[in-house]
C-alpha cells in the first residue's frame, strides 16, 4: 500500500529560466537509468527476493518515486512558463507538439520508457547485481547532468540525487553480503 506525503524529499530550487536543461533532465525521468526505471525495478524484484532483503528493496524503491518527483519538479519549473517558440528554441519542439509542457516518460533523445530497461531474473544475486549496476549508472548520469548544467540551484539537487545513488549502491552491496551468509564474517574494512 502506498501513502503519499505532500512534500518533496529535498527542497528543489531552479535559479535560471533555461528550458534547455529540461531536455537533458528528462533523461532521469523516463530514461534507462532514471528514477522511474529504478522504482519499478526494485519494487518488482521484491516479490521474489529472499525475505531478509525485501524491506530494503521496498524502501529504496519507494524513495526512488520521491526522486522521480524531484526531477519532475525541475522539469515542470523550467517549462511551465515557456511559449511554444521558447520550447522549440530549447530543442523541445518535438516534445511540445505531442505534449505541450506536459511531462512524459521518455529519455533525452525522445525514446519512450520501456520495461526492457528493467529486469527481474528471480535469482537474487543476479537481481542485486543489476541493482548495484543501476545505481552506478544513475550516479554517472547525474555527473554528466551536473557537467552540462550551469544552474547552481539545479546542481545542488543533482548532487543530492547523485549522493543518494552512492548510498543505495552501498545498501545493495550489503544485501549481497547478507545473502552470501558468511556467519559473523561481515567484513567492515
Amino acid at each position, binding site marked *: 500500500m502506498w501513502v503519499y506525503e505532500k512534500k518533496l524529499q529535498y527542497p528543489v530550487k531552479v535559479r535560471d529560466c533555461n528550458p534547455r536543461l529540461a531536455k537533458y533532465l528528462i533523461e532521469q525521468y523516463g530514461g534507462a537509468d532514471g528514477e522511474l526505471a529504478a522504482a519499478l525495478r526494485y519494487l518488482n524484484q521484491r516479490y521474489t527476493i529472499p525475505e531478509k532483503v525485501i524491506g530494503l528493496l521496498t524502501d529504496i524503491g519507494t524513495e526512488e518515486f520521491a526522486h522521480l518527483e524531484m526531477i519532475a519538479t525541475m522539469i515542470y519549473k523550467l517549462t511551465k512558463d515557456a511559449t511554444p517558440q521558447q520550447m522549440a528554441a530549447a530543442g523541445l519542439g518535438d516534445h511540445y507538439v505531442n505534449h505541450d509542457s506536459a511531462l512524459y516518460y521518455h529519455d533525452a533523445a525522445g525514446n519512450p520508457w520501456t520495461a526492457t530497461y528493467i529486469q527481474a531474473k528471480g535469482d537474487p544475486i543476479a537481481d542485486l547485481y543489476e541493482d548495484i549496476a543501476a545505481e552506478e549508472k544513475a550516479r554517472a548520469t547525474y555527473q554528466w547532468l551536473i*557537467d552540462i548544467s550551469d544552474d547552481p540551484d539545479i546542481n545542488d539537487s543533482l*548532487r*543530492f540525487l547523485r549522493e*543518494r545513488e*552512492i*548510498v543505495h549502491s552501498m545498501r545493495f*552491496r550489503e544485501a549481497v*553480503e547478507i545473502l552470501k551468509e558468511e556467519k559473523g564474517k561481515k*567484513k*567492515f574494512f
Partner: protein
Amino acid sequence: MTREKTFTLVKSYKPFHSKFDPCPPIGRKYYRTPPNLYINFQPPNMEQFTPEEALKYGTLWKFFYDFYDNPYRERET
C-alpha cells in the same frame, strides 16, 4: 576510519593520442571512485552530519559524502 589516508575519490588516465587524430587531445580522462567501493559493509557508529547538513549533502554519514564537480571545467575556458 579516515578515508583521506586510505583511498582517493578521483582517478585519472591518459588516453592514447594518435598523430592522425583530427582533434586536440583531451589530455586526461577522469573517473570517480566513490566511498561505497571501499567497504563491503557499513560499520556501526560512523560519524554523522547534523540533520540540516545531512539533507544538504545527501547522506547522514560523513564517510559517504562525495562532492562532484566537472573535472574538465578549466579546459573549457
